[in-house]
């Protein structure tokens, strides 16, 4: 499946350029953090790579076929999307879609509900839970199929510290078990905690892609320096 190669990708909407041209190569291991200010194009790039946004030009290449690659990916959105079903049914949904039996899917759902601390709420309607709980379900639902690649779009943006920590722990654990994670954030602290490498996006262009240590010690662009200094990046 890897490396994932993004070549000259552009996304325009009504002739307005959102991102691009973007060239990237993403390795198999660890957590890659897509860092940038609000409006820098992080969400658009994630959605373009995952196939949710149509490319205006360029290509996204995997070393396996596109359909196989699509089956090995999962995506967690900034605002969790919950099916109008119970917690258990939300967790079993991707497994059932892949043809697993109800009993096997339910066993997996119980395991994941325990991991995210929601085993007592497994029969409750997911949409009635708190934002943090819904995001935890969204992460669990994405990881329950053991994807080779997980995209996350600012998954902890509006969550409290404890929930943020719980989700970060799940991500670190998934990464250590072989799931490649590409996650966008504008939270520098989170990038420091999680990243192996950082992709810095500014005005729809990748200004830097390097290991975390290098990015933090030698910011490769003016905008990156401003971002690290906590200044407003224009």
């Amino acid at each position: 499946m890897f490396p994932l190669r993004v070549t000259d990708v552009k996304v325009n909407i009504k002739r307005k350029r959102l991102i691009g041209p973007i060239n990237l190569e993403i390795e198999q291991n660890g957590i890659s953090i897509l860092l940038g200010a609000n409006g820098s194009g992080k969400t658009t790039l994630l959605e373009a790579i995952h196939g949710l946004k149509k490319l205006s030009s360029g290509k996204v290449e995997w070393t396996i076929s596109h359909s196989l690659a699509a089956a090995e990916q999962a995506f967690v959105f900034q605002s969790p999307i919950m099916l109008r079903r119970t917690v258990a049914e939300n967790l079993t949904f991707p497994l059932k879609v892949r043809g697993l039996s109800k009993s096997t899917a339910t066993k997996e759902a119980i395991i994941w509900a325990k991991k995210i601390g929601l085993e007592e709420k497994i029969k409750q309607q997911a949409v009635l839970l708190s934002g943090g709980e819904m995001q935890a379900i969204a992460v669990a639902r994405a990881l329950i199929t053991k994807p080779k690649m997980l995209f996350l779009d600012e998954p902890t943006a509006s969550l409290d510290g404890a929930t943020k920590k719980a989700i970060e722990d799940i991500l670190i654990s998934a990464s250590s078990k072989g799931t490649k994670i590409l996650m966008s954030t504008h939270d520098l602290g989170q990038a420091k905690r999680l990243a192996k490498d950082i992709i810095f996006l500014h005005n729809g262009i990748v200004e830097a892609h390097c290991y975390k240590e290098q990015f933090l010690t030698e910011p490769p662009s003016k905008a990156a320096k401003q971002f690290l200094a906590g200044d407003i990046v224009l």
Partner: protein
Amino acid sequence: MNEILQGLMQAFWLVLSFDSELITISLRSLYVTLTALTISTLIAFPLAAFLVVTRFRFRQAIIATLNALMGLPPVVVGLIVYILFSRSGPLGVLGLLYTTSAMIIAQAIIITPLITSIAHQSMQGLWVDYRNLLISINVSKMQSLGTLMWDSKKALITACLAGFGRGIGEVGAIMIVGGNIDNATRVLTTAISLETSRGDFALALALGFVLISLAISVSFTTHWLGKTERGGLR
């Protein structure tokens, strides 16, 4: 006012005495409308979900046409079905004119656009929420249709009730294609029409009250079975 009271009393008497003719007519009404409803839902739900999920050239035109057909004049439908099934018509060989089958076909034609439009509206709202999630989970088009229909089931029950209400109260089309034949195609609405023209307002009102009770009973039963009104503010 006196006639309304008389009608009410006669309605009670007809029901309490298990009047065989009333029971036969009521059961025929239910048979015709519920069969038409079943045929309509089998067409309308998948069609509505398909229109929500797929994009093709004349999609908007089809949706606009279906919305316009919600107000389809029953008499015109009856006339068209009559012409189709009359002895000299293209489907005359089937010998369906003046049978309950022709009445079912006419009712199905009348209520299918109504159910499709309501179902489409409700599933469209859900699709806005679900679209990205279903794509990211790599759900097939057929699975998307199934998910949308399952998760919209409460709204779809409401669509069914609207269709049932339109069908059970319909008189113009079924009078033309059914002929209001005693012991064959007479239903509650055509019987009311007949008794009114005869000047027996009390009996017509009695049948009317039975018809209203039937419609309300079906609605209550459906709500109770579907538990569509669970959960409030408190």
